[in-house]
């Protein structure tokens, strides 16, 4: 499976024996069980499966925003399961960009300011930050909307701002949880095309959770999860 995924390219994510469960009262609910696979650099991977299959949990674990019960996740050679909360926060700021279903933009900040937000953790000066933000807003085609607040933008435009925010720090991996789930067909197509460009033109690795088969078609590889197990 690893060689099939990698096809000679460098493996950027390596997951081995991953298990995760949640406690609800006295009940322990297994969400992921003994999941192992790899993701190659520059891959566009779609994770599919029915609701409750564990795909969002898997995405959260790869992105370092949740903790595993057992198993290991190596990202770029680093075992993120051994990092503390603070170390994970710093790691995410550098290595991972996030794209959410509902965009998760700060409503009180303009498009420019939303995109600038992650750069505050990089130590860049104001001028450099401005250059970075303007560049990525150009990439997503929203240079003319940088002073707009999220409420002044359409869903598709908001998602493009969110993508700009995800790539502004130039992370290796982008994780997207149902990025087209809240968009109409045309906007979804625009967003998927943009994500495809990020893979092909900028060499980003994208891991996308989706229910939408048409969204999954854009991916290079589709993996299915069923009841916490990786089925293919």
């Amino acid at each position, binding site marked *: 499976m690893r060689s099939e995924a990698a096809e000679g390219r460098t493996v950027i994510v390596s997951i081995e024996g991953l298990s995760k469960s949640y406690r609800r009262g006295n009940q322990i609910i297994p969400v992921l069980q003994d999941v192992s696979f790899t993701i190659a650099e520059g891959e566009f991977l779609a994770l599919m499966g029915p609701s409750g299959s564990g795909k969002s*949990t898997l995405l*959260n674990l790869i*992105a370092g*925003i*949740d903790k595993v019960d057992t198993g290991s996740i190596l990202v770029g050679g680093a075992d993120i399961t051994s990092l503390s*909360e*603070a170390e994970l*926060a*710093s790691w*995410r*700021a*550098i290595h991972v960009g*996030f794209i*959410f*279903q*509902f965009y*998760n933009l*700060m*409503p*009180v*900040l303009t498009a420019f*300011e939303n995109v*600038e*937000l*992650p750069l*505050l*953790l990089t130590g860049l000066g104001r001028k450099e930050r401005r250059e970075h933000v303007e560049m990525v807003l150009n990439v997503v085609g929203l240079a003319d909307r940088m002073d707009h607040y999220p409420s002044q933008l359409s869903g598709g435009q908001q998602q493009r701002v969110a993508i700009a*925010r995800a790539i502004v720090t130039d992370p290796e991996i982008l994780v997207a949880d149902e990025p087209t789930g*809240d968009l109409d067909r045309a906007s979804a197509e625009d967003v998927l095309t943009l994500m495809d460009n990020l893979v092909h033109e900028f060499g980003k690795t994208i891991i996308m959770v989706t229910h939408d088969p048409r969204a999954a078609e854009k991916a290079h590889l589709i993996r299915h999860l069923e009841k916490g197990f990786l089925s293919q």
Partner: protein
Amino acid sequence: MLFKLIIRNAFRHKLRSLLTILGVAIAILAFGLLRTLVGLWYLGVEQSSATRLVTRNAISLVFPLPISYKDRIRQIEGVKLISYGNWFGGIYINEKNFFPNFAVEPQSYLELYPEFVLTPEQKNAFIHDQRGAVAGRKLAEKYGWKVGDTITLKGTIFPGQWTFVLRGIYRGAQKNTDETQFFFNWKYLNETMKRTVPRRADQAGFYMIGVQKPELAAQVAQAVDATFKNSLAETLTETERAFQLGFVSMTEAILIAIEIVSYVVIVIIMVVAANTMAMTARERIAEYATMKTLGFGARHIAGVIFGESVVIALIGGVIGIILTFPAAHGIQEQLSQFFPVFHVSSMTVYLDLAASLGVGITASIFPAWRGATIPIADGLRRIG
């Protein structure tokens, strides 16, 4: 940028923020006025001099001392000046027009109290006119008195109608000097007593002693009391500060009640502000989770929540402080017979600021902790 986020978040729900700011402003206004009132209680203590002693009858302030004590006290080592007087307790027109009025020996009294500032001409006229009197600036303004006016007080402790000629209007040397007092020449009281009630003549209600230096105060006080020990009118001598504190202690229960109320006001607004911040943080938990996802740490999230709360509380606090000044002025105008000075001190302003800051910080402790510690995955589930 994060500061921008804090400011914009603070005014995201304009009505809620404005109501919270208004609440804090009113609480700080009430706190400031109550603290000023407490400060007023200690006004006499604050104004007291370390080089002034008060000698009174050891049994009670209501019993007088022979005027002959004056010369014996003057002989005591360390005594620089001695003056004397009586609380007169006169009424101007009717009881509602209360103001403190004393019969004093003018020359020595004004020497002992340089904070009552008179022109040399007015001072001279007061000293040399047996019916002369001086009034504080605020008192004279209140009743429209001018120098040369005739003022009649109805005696209570010393019965009869007492007519004085206003020879001067004193100004306070400091901002908090009481400018609502009325002093008249002790000789007028004594000569009248000699004619009408001779047994009450030649008696002083109190002696004011000026010592050469503060370090001698205790020694002089002991010496004065020792001089009159086992006499018919034993004395009790204490520093002016201790004497004033004695008055404060008589009304200590009221003072404590006011102090408690002032802090209760702050506690109430803390609870209200905490509720507002808890609501706010609960609504924004997904945003905080998103920020954490982007790499912001717990301290950033806590800082944003603290900042928002402190901004709201400080704006309310500053408005409250600004309102305290006209409110204090209004109180003084309307209730000058009870509050001769209603000056908002810089200490009260600092306390107001500290209270505002305290409200802001305390109100955000729980929301900040919650925002900083909530697992990202849990926070992100609060969307949609």
